[in-house]
């Protein structure tokens, strides 16, 4: 059994960002959190704070969350300056309090990017991602009678690489962590997922052009290859997907005759 098996608790000073709406000014609110169990998750610690606030008749801190097992991509907190906190490949919901020291001051901020306007407090609007997806992040295959699933063999390597890219949970940590608020890792992940599969080939060029166009018009910044996105990604998606996106886009716009 590990050292902190039994009811260990820590005390924290929490500085939480409060903001009524995208247009309104925001500020930090300080809360002293006493006796936080080291086995609770970061969101469970926030639950405890919110329960206290509600009991006092105050509005709780609004934050997005749902599955709490690191796959829905809802949770989105910048903790001490890092999207999803300091643990590698861990979404906020799976970050546990045993990673913090008693007495620490913890800053909690929302994703900050103009393309992700604040809805309230720590919750931001990530519908820009849906608009980028609807521009071309799909294979046009109507429900019906496609060929048998085994009709086209796909090498295990291709399939694995497609899966590496497809693992994206759309949380937006890449944008939040990027010094330029660029969405290249997100878009690159979808473009690479489909570019690495035979099913994605017929629309490969249209897709990449349309998705980059949509991405640009959403006002995300330009990638300058800091690679912070990949370091912040809870699924560890690599910047190879950005190279793939660049390559496919250049090919589609400059090389192809149509």
């Amino acid at each position, binding site marked *: 059994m590990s050292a902190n098996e039994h009811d260990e608790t820590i005390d924290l000073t929490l500085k939480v960002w409060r903001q009524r709406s995208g247009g309104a000014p925001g500020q930090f609110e300080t809360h002293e959190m006493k006796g936080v169990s080291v086995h609770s998750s970061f969101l469970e610690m926030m639950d405890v704070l919110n329960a206290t606030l509600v009991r006092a008749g105050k509005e709780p801190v609004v934050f997005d969350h749902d599955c709490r097992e690191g796959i829905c991509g809802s949770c989105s907190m910048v903790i001490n300056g890092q999207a999803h906190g300091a643990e590698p490949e861990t979404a906020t919901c799976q970050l546990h309090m045993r990673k913090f020291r008693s007495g620490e001051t913890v800053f909690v901020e929302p994703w900050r990017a103009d393309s992700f306007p604040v809805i309230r407090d720590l919750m931001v609007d990530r519908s820009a991602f849906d608009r980028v997806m609807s521009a071309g992040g799909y294979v046009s295959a109507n429900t019906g009678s496609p060929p048998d699933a085994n009709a086209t063999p796909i090498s295990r390597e291709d399939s694995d690489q497609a899966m590496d890219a497809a693992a994206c949970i759309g949380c937006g940590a890449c944008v939040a962590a990027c010094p330029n608020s660029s969405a290249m890792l997100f878009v690159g992940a979808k473009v690479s997922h489909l570019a690495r599969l035979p099913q994605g080939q017929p629309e490969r060029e249209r897709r990449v052009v349309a998705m980059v166009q949509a991405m640009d018009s959403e006002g995300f910044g*330009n990638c300058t290859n800091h690679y912070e996105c990949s370091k912040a990604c809870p699924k560890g998606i690599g910047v190879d997907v950005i190279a793939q996106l660049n390559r496919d886009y250049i090919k589609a716009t400059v090389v192809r005759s149509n």
Partner: protein
Amino acid sequence: MFTWIGQFLSSSIGKKTTMALTGLLLVGFLIAHLAGNLLLYKDPEAFEAYARKLHDLGPFLYVLELGLLALFVGHIAFAVRTIVENRKARHSKYAVQADRGGKTLASATMPLTGTIVLLFLFWHLIDFRFDGGFKGLFADGASGAGAADVVWNTLGGTAHMAVYLLGIAALTLHLSHAIQSAFQTLGLRHPKWTPLIERGGVALAVLLGLGFASIPFAAAIR
């Protein structure tokens, strides 16, 4: 008919691609420039011959200079646009920001090092292209100091030494991120080759930096 060019150049990836291509060509220029400079160490005559050869290109030299100017202007113009857009993409800044190992000193300071290199470039052009010593070197009837001596004489002072070292240091830092970054931007990433490109890029940046920096040092100890 040419709308695709405009579309490409106004897209985020188009802008970056242009910066990458112009940047790589400028690296090519730097390599040629350094190779020429290193003739200084061979013997004054070799450098003199090199300088004369360039001079003898006549109007064609202006074409080359214009080409070089276009590369610089293109690189800088797209850099400025990128920087401005990136600033606009996040109006509200983080109160606390901690990097997690992607960002480097070089990648974080690209606009700064780029600006220093640009300012240095003006100084350098004034030294050697406009007012400086090469002017009149090959004029009819000119005599006296050879091309090599012009270099040594121009770079001799402490002020020059400081400015050149600062400019070259900024260039080195700039390139240490830029070279691998350009490959990434052009989509040239490969599990086997990228580690080589990354290390090779830094090595090339350092070699260029050392090579260029050696000249003011050599001037100082003469």
